[in-house]
C-alpha cells in the first residue's frame, strides 16, 4: 500500500492515511491495534470492498485501485479468503453449502479444487482437518452449530480452493482462550500447507508468538477522527 488515503463515504471526519505498508508472500502477519483504530477499514481496503481516494494498493502484482468494481469483486473471489470476527455463515444454509460458497464466484478456485479432488471431498477434508466431523455436520444448518464450530467452518470456507491471501478480522475474539489456541493452530497448519499469506488483525498481543511478523497499525497509519 502506497500513499493511501481513505475516508468513508458520508463520514468525512474519519480518515485513514497509510504511507507504506507491505507484506511478503507466505508471511503470517499479526496486525495489532486498539478497537476502533481503523483495522477493519484497512482490511476493507485490502480486500477491495472499498476503494481509497488516493494511492495504490498492489496485491500479487495487481494494483486493485485501478480495477473496476466488478473486477475487484472477481479479484477478491479468486485470491482472498476472509474470516470475520463472528457471524461468518449464512445461518439457514447447510454447512457444506457455506463452505462451497466461494467456489461459485471463482473459476480459478473451482479449478484448483477439481485438480486434486471434488468440491464435496475437499470441503470434507478441510472440515476434518479443522476438527469437525463432516458426516455429522455437513448437512446441518449453520445456525445449529456452536460459535467455535462456526468459526472453523468459516476457516474451511476461507481456505477452499487455495486462495493466496487469507484475511482474518479478530477471528478468535468470540472464542475462549483454550479454543483460540486450538483454532489458530489448525488454521496455521492449513495456511502453511497451502503456502498462503495470512493477515490477521487483533487487539490481543498474546497471540504474537505464532506469527512471523507483527506490526502495529499506528506505526504506519495515521487516523484522524474529527470532533463530533
Amino acid at each position: 500500500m502506497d500513499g493511501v488515503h481513505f475516508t468513508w463515504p458520508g463520514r468525512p471526519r474519519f480518515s485513514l492515511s497509510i504511507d507504506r505498508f507491505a507484506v511478503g508472500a507466505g508471511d503470517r502477519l499479526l496486525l495489532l491495534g486498539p478497537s476502533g483504530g481503523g483495522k477493519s477499514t484497512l482490511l476493507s481496503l485490502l480486500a477491495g470492498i472499498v476503494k481509497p481516494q488516493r494511492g495504490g494498493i498492489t496485491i500479487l502484482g495487481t494494483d486493485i485501485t485501478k480495477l473496476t468494481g466488478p473486477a475487484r469483486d472477481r479479484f477478491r473471489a479468486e485470491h482472498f479468503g476472509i474470516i470475520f470476527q463472528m457471524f461468518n455463515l449464512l445461518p439457514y444454509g447447510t454447512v457444506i453449502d457455506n463452505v462451497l460458497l466461494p467456489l461459485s464466484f471463482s473459476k480459478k478456485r473451482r479449478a484448483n479444487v477439481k485438480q486434486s479432488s471434488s468440491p464435496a471431498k475437499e470441503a470434507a477434508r478441510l472440515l476434518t482437518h479443522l476438527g469437525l466431523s463432516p458426516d455429522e455436520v455437513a448437512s446441518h444448518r449453520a445456525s445449529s452449530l456452536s460459535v467455535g464450530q462456526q468459526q472453523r467452518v468459516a476457516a474451511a470456507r476461507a481456505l477452499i480452493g487455495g486462495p493466496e491471501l487469507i484475511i482474518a478480522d479478530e477471528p478468535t475474539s468470540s472464542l475462549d482462550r483454550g479454543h483460540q489456541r486450538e483454532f489458530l493452530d489448525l488454521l496455521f497448519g492449513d495456511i502453511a500447507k497451502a503456502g498462503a499469506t495470512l493477515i490477521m488483525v487483533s487487539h490481543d498481543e498474546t497471540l504474537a508468538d505464532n506469527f512471523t511478523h507483527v506490526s502495529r497499525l499506528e506505526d504506519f497509519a495515521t487516523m484522524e477522527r474529527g470532533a463530533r
Partner: protein
Amino acid sequence: MIVLRLALQSLRARWLTALLSVLAIAFSVMLLLGVEKVRNGARQSFADTISGTDLIVGARSGGVQLLLYSVFRIGNATNNVTWKSYQDIAAHPDVEWIVPLSLGDSHKGYRVLGTNQDYFKHYRFRGDQPLELAQGEVFDDLFDAVIGSEVARQLGYKVGDKIVIGHGLGSVSFLDHANKPFRVSGILEKTGTPVDRTVHVSLGAIEAIHIDWQQGAPVPGQSVSADEVRQMELKPQAITAALIGLKSRLAVFRVQRAINEYRQEPLLAILPGASLQELWELVHVAETALAVVSAMVVATAILGMVTMILTTLNERRREMAILRSVGARPATVMGLLATEAGVLTLAGVILGTVLLYVGLFFARPIVDRLYGLNLPVSAPTSWELTTLSAIVVAGLIAGLGPAILAYRRSLADGMTVRV
C-alpha cells in the same frame, strides 16, 4: 447454483412473512382477474341475449331504455305503441317479420310477456340459436303460458300446472287476475338470457285478463269469466314494443328512418347492437373505476411485499457482507433481492390465477342462478396474460428499491458484519 439455493433457503427461513406477501398478491390478482371476468361475462351475456333482430320499435324514449325494457326486462316502458302503428309497420315492404311484445304484468316476480307464436320462431340468442321447448308445446289456447327454464325450476312448475298472473311488476301483487288462471303449456330450454325468467302468454291473453279492468284496477261488479272471454273477439289496443326482422339488412336505416318519422305517433326504432354499444359507453366509467380500484389493490399488495423485504433487510446485512466477502458482485447481491421480489410476485400471480379459476368453477352455477350471468371458465385472454406479466415485472422493479438500499448499506458496512 449454491447462491440460488442459499437464496431459496433464506426465503424459507422467512416463510411466514413470505407466504403472507404471496397471499396478499394472490388475492389482489384474484380480484383484478375476477373483475375482468365478470365484466366480460356481463358483456357477453348482454350481447348474447338478442341476435337476428334488425330493429326494435317502441314508444319514443331513449334507445338504451327501450333496449333495456324490451329485451332485458329492466325498467319500464313510459308509453305504449298503438296496435294501428304496429300494423302499419308490419305492412312496410321491407319488413319480413315483426313480433309484438306486451309487458307490464308479472308472476311471482317474473315478468309476463304477451306476444304471439312468431316470437318462438324468430327470437334468436347466442349467435343464431332459436328457442327450444324442453317440455310441452307453444301456447295454443288463450290461457296457455310458456315459461322460461328458471321460472319452472324456481317455482317448481310442470306442464299442466295452473298459475295466476299478478297485476303490475312487484314480486308480491296485491291485485291479481285470479279469475283467469293460466295453464303451463310448455317449458323452454335454458338460454342464459332473460327469457329464462319470463312467462310468455299470447297477446290476446294480456287483453283478456284486463278486459274487466279500467285504469289499473278491476271494475267492481263487472267480472267477466274466462269462458265468457273466450267467446269475445280480442283485439289488442296497444303493445309495449316490437322486434323486427328485415328482408335485407341493407334496408335497416331506411326502415329506421321511416319509423322514427312516423306521423301518427312518436315512435323510436333502434338497432340492438348500436344501443348496446351506447350502454357500454354508459357503464364504461363504472368499469374503469372498478379496474382502477383493483389495480390499486395489486399495487398495495406489491407495496406490502416490498415492506416485508425491507424489514428483513437489517437481518440480511450479514448475508450481504458474507456474499460480498466471498466475491459476490453488487449486481449479484441486488439481483438476489430483486429475484426474490420477482419470485414472490410470480408465486402470488400464479396462486391468484389458480384460486380464481377454482373459485370460478364453484361459483359459476350460483352466479348463473342468482344473476343470470354466465361466467365462462375460459383460458386467460391475452389482455389477462399481459396484465399478469406486467404485475410480475412491477414486482421485480419494486424489488429493486430494497435491492439498491441493501447494496448501499453493504458498501457502507465494508468488512464489518453487523447484526
